[in-house]
């Protein structure tokens, strides 16, 4: 029952041996120390005195603002009309997240087979040709590029192209998640048991038939699971993309914050948390159904 001991913490000679992993942990610790030294003593920052009573009192009064302390009138989070309006924005945000997940899923479904090494250049490849290997490289590079750039930055670029609304935000989320979903699913294909595929191949099935009857059915359940996990991340990010792409809760959040309508900020945060919770529950239910 014992897991195999890893070199990280078990060494043969009795004293700790420097392996790649323990070296990496040491490098990480050194980086952390450097980063903190830079933050605390760095010349490029103006001096703030973060650890001071002033910071604490400012944070405390901000929390009071969020609760609506010292402000006449009903706070927004107790106002029915404001709730309904924020609820409408929450619905738009939800639509944006579904749109994003859907577009990302379609993109990933169309490409992931070309990003699996075993299908393109390994034992399942019909022809060992440099063209196929190159195509594999291109798709993998596309995935890396699309997921390296964060959603918000894609949104900043896309608002110059598309009319404001939920579409640029949804596309930005979709591009980023396309890369993640595609890579994850391609890795599922690479880890599949290839015996059914080879059995089909030996009984005369062509490349397309092997893909359709041996690989897709085995990879799709995992793909669906990943899709729902990504949806949980996407709903958290829709508000962020909305900050620049003029759609849903994000835009209203930014406006309220810059106009110091702090009780509206609280209301929007409540709706945001409700959305996140709702999507988490829905995703868990769907993942159970998919199993």
């Amino acid at each position, binding site marked *: 029952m014992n897991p195999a001991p890893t070199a990280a913490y078990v060494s043969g000679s009795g004293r700790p041996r420097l392996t790649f992993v323990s070296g990496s942990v040491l490098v990480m610790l050194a980086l952390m120390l450097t980063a903190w030294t830079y933050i605390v003593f760095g010349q490029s920052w103006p001096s703030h005195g*973060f650890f001071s009573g002033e910071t604490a009192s400012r944070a405390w009064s901000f929390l009071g603002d969020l609760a609506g302390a010292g402000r006449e009138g009903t706070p927004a989070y107790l106002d029915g009309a404001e709730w309904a309006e924020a609820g409408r924005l929450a619905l738009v945000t939800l639509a944006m997240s579904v749109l994003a997940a859907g577009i990302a899923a379609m993109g990933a479904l169309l490409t992931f087979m070309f990003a699996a090494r075993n299908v393109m250049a390994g034992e399942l490849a019909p022809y060992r040709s440099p063209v196929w290997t190159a195509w594999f490289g291109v798709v993998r590079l596309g995935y890396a590029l699309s997921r390296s750039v964060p959603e918000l930055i894609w949104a900043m670029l896309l608002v110059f192209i598309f009319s404001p609304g939920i579409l640029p935000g949804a596309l930005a989320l979709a591009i980023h998640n396309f890369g993640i979903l595609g890579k994850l699913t391609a890795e599922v294909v690479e880890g599949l048991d290839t015996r059914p595929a080879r059995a089909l191949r030996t009984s005369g099935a062509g490349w397309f038939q092997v893909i359709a009857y041996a690989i897709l059915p085995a990879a799709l359940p995992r793909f*669906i699971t990943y899709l729902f996990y990504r949806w949980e991340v996407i709903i*958290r990010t829709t508000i962020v993309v909305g900050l620049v792409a003029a759609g849903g809760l994000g835009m209203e959040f*930014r406006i309220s914050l810059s106009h110091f309508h702090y009780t509206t900020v609280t209301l929007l*945060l409540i709706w*945001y948390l409700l959305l996140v919770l709702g999507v988490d529950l829905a995703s868990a239910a769907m993942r159970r159904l998919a199993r």
Partner: protein
Amino acid sequence: MRSEYPISRGRPRAIESRRTITLILLGAFALSLLGIDWSEGVFRPRGVSAIGETLGAFIRPDLSPDLLRTAAAAAWQTAVYAVAGLTVALLIGIPLGVVASGTIARSRLGAVTQIGAARAVLAFFRAIHELVWALLLVAAIGLSPMAAVLALGIPYGGILGRIYSELLQDVPQAPLDALRRSGASEWRVFLFGRLPMALPDMVSYTFYRLECGIRSAAVLGWVGLGGLGFQVQIALEDLAYSRVWTFLWALVVMVVLVDLWSSQVRRRLAP
């Protein structure tokens, strides 16, 4: 020929539920298409030409030495935020994760309370996106690097804590029982049994999070806290796409390098 097992009628359950899922997914997507306002046209008036400019700059970023120096400085600042934020995440995630695993509780009731309370806190931390934390923290404590570090550290702490708690729960039980039978207290069982067994996976996941942290730290620049995201924003305000892509390529290179490092670490830690 008679079978001992009743023959099931209709389609197998798995196919039924797959059908349901497909219908739900397609329906939800179709409904969400209604949320788009199609009346004003999909593209901005000069949007189509912006596509060309963006793509052109993507191939030919501005590589003048001055700009590269700015990009390097911004990349360094982003890395500093990411690493410092990860430190905060560890400070939050390790203690809360241990409590949320319920493995150091003395009694069953204690375990249930600890798991419930710690999980609720962790869920709240990670429910709010780091950029929203950043906006709130900047509003609360002002434009200080600490706002960026905390904005990254709080939600990442929530994620690390949840994963750590699950890893600590999922270790094999037999070695723990062996320790218990030889008289070890629950604390020692944790320290010498549970922790060493879960540690490789914990380290592995932390390295994976570093890669995500770099991306997140770049985005934090948007609220005015410096780094690559901030530079991208400035360049976009000038509509200087070639400069935008210089910084984006810097980000891509940094993320790919960290990805390579962390995947090497994770490959060696995999069982």
